[in-house]
């Protein structure tokens, strides 16, 4: 098989795996990040302490360390995760910690008057958070959340280290067979560039669509 034919086959398989990885980790890390962010602000003593500890650990550990723990470390205590799921777990733990940071900051930026007005209408705590605070906080947090997604696209490449055959792994295999690093890693760079560029264009469009007068200052 020709170099480019071989590359294309491996690359498309790798790309598929990367997209699969991202389609699982992106939504889950956002959901978990929102929950943890809410817990950090409204969780009371215990809830916020637990959530803060979670963030302390998973923001403090390099993603690579968390990934090694999920794959090699947990095996020590009898938990054997497939590379794909170990990588997914590590990415979700790490990114949700970062996501929660944006969510928390956004919640704290909402003025006290909003909460007073909600309570004056007779809303309970849950209604106040769900209908008044979060719709505003999530708009404010959106640029941070999408920025973290761009990082997730880049850092998903670390899954190669524990044997997930994603994009970067396909490059490593190619290079061990053909040893043409310039073409191989250059092409891979272009693949990632096109992914991040497309994603950031889409996010800008989403941010524009969701824009509300009065929230420009928040970004």
């Amino acid at each position, binding site marked *: 098989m020709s170099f480019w034919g071989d590359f294309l086959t491996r690359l498309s398989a790798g790309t598929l795996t990367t997209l699969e990885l991202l389609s699982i980790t992106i939504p889950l890390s956002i959901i978990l990040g929102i929950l943890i962010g809410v817990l950090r602000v409204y969780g009371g003593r215990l809830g916020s302490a637990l959530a803060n500890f979670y963030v302390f650990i998973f923001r403090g550990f390099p993603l690579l360390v968390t990934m090694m723990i999920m794959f090699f470390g947990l095996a*020590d205590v009898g938990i054997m995760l497939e590379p794909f799921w170990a990588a997914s777990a590590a990415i979700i733990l790490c990114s949700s910690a970062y996501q929660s940071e944006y969510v928390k900051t956004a919640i704290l930026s909402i003025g006290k008057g909003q909460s007073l007005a909600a309570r004056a209408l007779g809303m309970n705590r849950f209604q106040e958070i769900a209908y008044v605070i979060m719709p505003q906080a999530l708009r404010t947090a959106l640029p941070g959340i999408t920025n973290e997604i761009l990082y997730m696209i880049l850092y998903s490449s670390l899954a190669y280290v524990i044997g997930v055959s994603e994009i970067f792994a396909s490059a490593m295999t190619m290079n061990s067979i053909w040893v043409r690093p310039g073409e191989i890693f250059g092409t891979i760079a272009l693949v990632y560039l096109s992914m991040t560029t497309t994603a950031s264009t889409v996010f800008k469009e989403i941010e524009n669509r969701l824009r509300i007068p009065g929230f420009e200052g928040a970004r």
Partner: protein
Amino acid sequence: MSNLQVLAKYLPYIFDGSLWSLGLVGAGLGIGFAIGVLMSLGQVYGNPLIRKIVDAYTWFFRGTPLLVQLFLFHWSVFPAIGLRTTALETSMLVLGMRSGAYQSQIFRGSIESIEEGQVLAAKALGLSFWQQSLYVVLPQALRKAVPQLSNEYSIILKDSAVCFVLGVMEIMTRTRYVTIATGIALIPYLIAGALYIALTYLGAKAFDMVYSRIRIQGLVTG
């Protein structure tokens, strides 16, 4: 000797990796600082061509994974321009170029946050462009950027773990050797994680100290 005892014996070996990791971070921050300052000036004050070049540079380094950058430069770009670098040198240079892209964004923001009047006043005194930058703009902009540089430090520190793929003898590489030697993985990696948190904390403290030293009363920090 049990595996745990062997592990205990290896702990100093892992800890010594801190120096290598910090070396990577120091080089990355330093090289990145030089690149970042120049490029931020280019982006704010440069002509359209310079701005295009800076944009392309940041687009590349912020849009590709560190992993790809390390291999691309180590096996292709550096050899092509006649640089025969060791794994450590490649890692330092790549971390630096990469951080330069991020730092240029940081400095650009802080330069743009300086009021126009400052530059006008400098021009009115007859200072040249480089004098304006050196004596008026940068002293203010760099001070404002310190908190974000502290953040950049913790990012490069965590990124430096990736350099283990080239075999640089930093924390991760050593931890991996230990897991192979002892057959224990969970505890060594938890120790490595704790080590990164400790280094992050120490670095943040150092930046705080620097910041309180050089902060100017009344200069609002962004």
